[in-house]
């Protein structure tokens, strides 16, 4: 895209600048639209599993429900509680929303179709997802209300706990791929198992890592069965209890953008991203973008499925799973995977 703007007579720097802005818009706008549709899909799937109809009034099949909700929320009054710390209270949803969009910069949508093709792509994702805690913790503290504060404490403890094991899981993937670059990680999965299966998930050593990553990503995004931060019987509605209007909508959108991000990471790191699942030439006729989208949507369906069927965990069970099960097991797998690679790939 930079080259295109250079043909319009711009200097390289400005062409790069304009191209990057265009790239950001090209990712962010469809993403927001996708988030609106995915909220609708989530409600529909959930309804179908509970033998209900779900949203079906606004637009054909209720397709416009999210937009109607958005409009309603937009027209509401923004209420700032009088005891709240005003500045932080208003910045917190912005932080959540921005961070949820930022990590998409390194996700490859197709071969080479990535906004920032950086060497440390996966580390960037880790860094940005570790920022996500701040939106939550700032909201809980600035609300100056006890239930949001409890919820923020729970949420941040939960996110920090599961980030540790996610880090070790990602290390296993990186060890096998030999790179932190997201695009190269996808390429490393081409014909990974028996020369025909594209994806680390088909590798017996990495399959357990994928299972743990799926569960950890549920916990990281505070989805059911780990949605303790909004356990309505205990905490009203979570850390965003005091929020109204667009500030509330920012949390809502940010949460679902994060869920989509986790699905995209799952697809990219374990299921071969924009590669078809099998390394057969016919399957390459379908554009890589379609494969990527299909995988992301499938994982979102899995997320909704889990939400509709699995009962909520207790908080101590959640912490036990994170620290006493996932952390030792993922740490062990780092040792096993690196040992295996030393024996086979880097044998001296």
């Amino acid at each position, binding site marked *: 895209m930079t080259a295109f703007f250079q043909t319009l007579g711009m200097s390289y720097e400005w062409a790069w600048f304009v191209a990057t802005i265009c790239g950001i818009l090209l990712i962010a706008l469809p993403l927001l639209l996708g988030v609106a549709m995915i909220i609708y899909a989530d409600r529909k799937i959930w309804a179908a599993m509970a033998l209900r109809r779900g949203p079906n009034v606004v637009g054909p099949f209720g397709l416009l429900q999210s937009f109607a909700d958005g409009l309603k929320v937009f027209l509401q009054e923004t209420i700032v509680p009088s005891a709240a*710390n005003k500045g932080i209270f208003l910045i917190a949803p912005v932080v959540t929303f921005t961070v949820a969009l930022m990590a998409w910069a390194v996700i490859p949508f197709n071969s080479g179709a990535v906004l920032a093709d950086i060497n440390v792509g996966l580390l960037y994702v880790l*860094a940005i997802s570790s920022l996500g805690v701040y939106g939550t*913790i700032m909201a809980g503290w600035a609300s100056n209300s006890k239930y949001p504060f409890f919820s923020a404490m729970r949420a941040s403890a939960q996110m920090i706990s599961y980030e540790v094991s996610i880090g070790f899981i990602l290390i296993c993937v990186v060890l096998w791929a030999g790179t932190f670059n997201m695009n190269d990680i996808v390429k490393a999965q081409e014909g990974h198992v028996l020369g025909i299966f594209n994806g680390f998930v088909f590798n017996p050593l990495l399959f357990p890592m994928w299972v743990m990553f799926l569960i950890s990503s549920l916990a990281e995004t505070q989805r059911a069965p780990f949605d303790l931060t909004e356990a309505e019987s205990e905490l009203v509605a979570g850390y965003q209890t005091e929020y109204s209007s667009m500030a509330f909508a920012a949390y809502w959108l940010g949460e679902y953008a994060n869920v989509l991000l986790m699905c995209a990471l799952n697809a990219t790191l374990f299921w071969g991203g924009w590669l078809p699942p099998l390394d057969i030439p016919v399957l390459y006729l379908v554009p890589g973008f379609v494969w990527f989208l299909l995988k992301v949507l499938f994982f979102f369906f899995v997320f909704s499925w889990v939400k509709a069927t699995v009962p909520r965990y207790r908080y101590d069970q959640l912490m036990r799973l994170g620290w006493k099960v996932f952390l030792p097991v993922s740490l062990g797998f780092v040792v096993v995977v690196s040992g295996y690679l030393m024996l086979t790939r880097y044998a001296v």
Partner: protein
Amino acid sequence: MIHVIAFYLFAVMTIASGAITILSRNPVHSVLWLILAFFNAAGLMILVGAEFIAMLLVIVYVGAVAVLFLFVVMMLDIDFAELRAGFVKNFPLGMLVAIVLLAEMVLGIGAYKTGALQLGAPDGTAAQPAGTSNIEAIGALLYSRYLFLFEAAGLILLVAMIGAIVLTHRQRGDTRGQKISKQISRRPDEATVNVKPEVGKGVSL
């Protein structure tokens, strides 16, 4: 052009948020400004091509250390007036620390400029061999030349971690821990009992 704008943006933001960190009255605001300072410092690191260090700065300091800071500051009930009262008393000590830090920075940059350290060219360019990524360059150096220092650092961190656990862990006699295996292995037929109580009499379980 964009480089220059970005550099001055990050540099000014780093210094400004660093200043507000120590000037702001609310300790929670201080920590949040400190986080902004870390973040902008990471931006500066990226500008000089040290993207690995930048990411580690964000992951370690912003993602872990500052969150703990924030937790502690939010949980503590701090009396701000009392906190400010010690300013004059602690001023000489603070100055001493500042002078030591300044001297260290001057020494470090001076040594780097005169080329006594093999870190790359003194003008800051070519800090890593061309063609290798940041991570490879650091890894190659860390696991060969500085292996023992690296391992020693890891050992110190381990000792610190164990020390922290030992200091905070206390065995209380009256706690009843959960036996997870017992909880999981419970089955409905052994967990529930069917009783038919007579009218007016209780049930003893």
